[in-house]
């Protein structure tokens, strides 16, 4: 039996309601379930856990999930490639290299609202963005294939450097690097969310503003140009906006996989490919998905925690396969 999909606007409303529900319910869940009545109680105890630990973590998860998902959507459109992810262009590898260097050097500092490892990771992400853009610009124009190949090459190069650093590190440093690479949302207070928010918000607004262009880019650069899209300018704007968004998220949470690649596909199956509706759906779904995954990650083996990067594929993979099998058409030929 094939799944019936409700109308697109109904899907968006359902996602919006689900978002509100998830943002209200998940902070209450954890090693200990917090009753609603405790939220406005005296300071300390359950109230503090909710306001200072759980809620910031849920907000951070939602922003990270939303940003990663919409980034994946943009890269899949620009590259017309089902397998594109937020990390395809090496941003995550750059950030991971920055984090690995920080750990290996044994540094310990922080800026107001930002840990030292996040600063190094963001610097690594910016470095990879600059290199990929620079390499792409060497050739005339802003060739998508050159950008893709430069990104993949940089990604492999940085990954090798990370392995080299790990190999040269002692056990403790190597363990810290591996744990960072798994992706974890471990935050206290709203500083991390505030760090990511400007990048994710700006990137999100730019993606919304360029949703018509994203539709056309998926039809190819010739058609886009002939319809009046300034293809190189549009690609450059999207590249920087989305890469900086990914850089800020990875700097805070590490390279959390799966959500960025699969959330856009899941939303395409449900709501179609028109980016005017796909973008908001992907943002909401990505946010919900990572928030739920992180809730599972911090409750499954409580009081210990699992890295959320492990959970995303564990619960997302089977769901995606079920959705794919329940539809009569392929992911790229919907309806």
């Amino acid at each position: 039996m094939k799944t019936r999909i409700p109308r697109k606007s109904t899907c968006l409303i359902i996602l919006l309601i689900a978002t509100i529900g998830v943002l209200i319910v998940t902070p209450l869940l954890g090693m200990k379930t917090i009753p609603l009545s405790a939220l406005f109680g005296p300071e300390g105890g359950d109230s503090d856990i909710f306001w200072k630990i759980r809620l910031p973590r849920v907000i951070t998860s939602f922003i990270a999930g939303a940003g990663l998902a919409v980034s994946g959507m943009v890269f899949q459109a620009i590259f017309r490639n089902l397998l594109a992810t937020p990390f395809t262009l090496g941003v995550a590898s750059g950030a991971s290299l920055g984090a690995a260097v920080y750990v290996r050097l044994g540094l310990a500092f922080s800026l107001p609202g930002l840990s030292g490892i996040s600063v190094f990771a963001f610097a690594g992400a910016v470095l990879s963005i600059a290199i990929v853009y620079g390499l792409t610009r060497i050739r005339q124009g802003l060739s998508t294939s050159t950008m893709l190949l430069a990104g993949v090459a940089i990604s492999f190069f940085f990954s090798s450097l990370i392995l080299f650093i790990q190999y040269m590190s002692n056990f403790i440093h190597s363990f810290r690097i591996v744990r960072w690479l798994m992706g974890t949302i471990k935050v206290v207070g709203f500083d991390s969310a505030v760090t990511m928010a400007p990048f994710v918000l700006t990137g999100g607004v730019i993606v919304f503003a360029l949703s018509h262009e994203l539709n056309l880019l998926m039809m190819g650069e010739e058609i886009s140009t002939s319809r009046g899209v300034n293809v190189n300018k549009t690609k450059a704007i999207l590249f920087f906006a989305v890469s900086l968004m990914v850089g800020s998220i990875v700097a805070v949470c590490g390279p959390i996989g799966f959500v960025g690649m699969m959330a856009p596909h899941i939303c395409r199956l449900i709501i179609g490919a028109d980016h005017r509706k796909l973008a908001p759906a992907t943002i909401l779904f990505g946010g919900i998905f990572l928030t739920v995954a992180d809730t599972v990650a911090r409750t499954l083996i409580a009081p210990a925690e699992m890295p959320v990067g492990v959970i995303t594929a564990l619960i997302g993979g089977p769901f995606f396969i079920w959705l794919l099998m329940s539809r009569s058409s392929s992911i790229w030929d919907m309806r």
Partner: protein
Amino acid sequence: MGNPLIDIQHLSLSLGGKAILQNISLAVPRGDMVSLIGPNGAGKTSLLKCLIRIYTPAEGDIKIDGQSLQGYGSKALARRISYVPQEEGGSSPFTVREYVSMGRYPYFHPFSSSSAADKEAIRSALAITGMSAFADRSLGTLSGGERQKASIAAALAQGAEMMLLDEPSAFLDPRNQADILALLSRINHEQGVTILSVTHDINTAAITSRHAAALVEGKLAYWGGTDELMENDILKKIYGISFLFASHPKTGVKLVIPDAP
């Protein structure tokens, strides 16, 4: 003849150090239907791509309605010229309606949704091309002929007075070829759209077009009426082989058959 809609003067294009087009001068009258013919690799598609600024010529000038091509903004140019690329097939996640609505991009603003004028243009383009019944079908589920009609509908929705087509009836069966050619003829006559179409079929050019331009190794080898084109010495100069001639049994239009050795 008044001002030509497209006026190409001494156009030369090089790609990767290789001369693709050399000193092309051509003036397409408003309302005309022109076929662009020539052997493979002669530069036909490249000429179309110069007209929509996918390629930037090394020399020469192109004027659209008297104004230099470089003076047009991206969207302003798309409001004057639409383009139907060679059908590449493959899958696409969009429905026909979504694809045709992309033709209205030159009229969209950021964050905007379709206006009443956009909706009417999309409805009209679907109706003219006979694609209304396919509007909610995915492009990936269409046949080659239907997909080509969807591409023409998307170009038509652009509301441009000039349509460039790159081999619109290639890879189609005879019925779909006839459908597409009849559709282009209607668009030319009833919508007043000037058409410049690349084709390898000389007979199609003779039947559908008033004028033809022929490119050979990047140079303009012929520009004139299609009646005058159908001469053995002219066609031999273009294709390097001789042709046999016959008359269309209904219209009397001269048709050609390659005189294969």
